[in-house]
């Protein structure tokens, strides 16, 4: 099953901009991001998760253009073709 994960801004610098990932069915969104982050950079992992392994409250998580809260990301299972985006607080304008 294939999904796309994109990181932006500081998270992109730490973890890469766009990752196509092959995963097994039943994986939660949070679990998927933990796996990728751990594999790529400890600093990147720490930027997203606290010591207990849960998303920092300021991390923004979107799946297919819909925002999910960190607790929701623990429960939502990713599906074939999902487009996931992870980013820090916005600072445009």
């Amino acid at each position, binding site marked *: 099953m294939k999904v796309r994960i*994109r990181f*932006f*801004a*500081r998270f*992109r610098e730490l973890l890469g901009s766009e990752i196509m990932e092959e995963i097994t069915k039943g994986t939660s969104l949070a679990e998927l991001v933990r796996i990728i982050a751990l594999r790529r950079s400890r600093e990147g992992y720490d930027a997203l998760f606290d010591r207990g392994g849960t998303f920092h*409250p*300021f*991390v*923004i998580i*979107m799946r297919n*253009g*819909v*925002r*999910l*809260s960190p607790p*929701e990301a623990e429960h939502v299972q990713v599906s074939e073709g999902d487009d996931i*985006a992870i*980013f*820090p*607080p*916005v*600072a*445009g*304008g």
Partner: protein
Amino acid sequence: MIAVQTDDVDIGDLIHRAKQPGAGAIVLFDGIVRDDDITEMELEAYEDIAIKKLEQIAERARHLYHLLSVDIIHRTGRLKVGENILVILVSAGHRKGAYEGSRYILETIKAEVPVWKKELRRDGNHWVPGEYPHNTGNIPLNEEL
């Protein structure tokens, strides 16, 4: 015109096109790169969502403040001191709607549109923190954009 782009925009032309029937007041906001000891600014956007968000904000503002026209151009890429970062141009029948609509658009962009800024300084680079840190992005939960 709603755009996220690297190119600059012709403000004179935007003003010209905003002068449509019923318009009595035009307000332009032009956010530019400030010379805070920086050499350049680098802007990054989650483009597809940023554009959808800008369109949504423009539509909401048009309705809430009875605006006749709304243009929003948010630039990305590397910008020098003095360059335009964000141009918001609105026209309305009267000044009140024009000012308030313009300000509403700007504040909502700062809270909701996925764009990030990095200051490039002689002593190192630095991501500008969001002004709405916790309630991040204020992108509503579970809302389809």
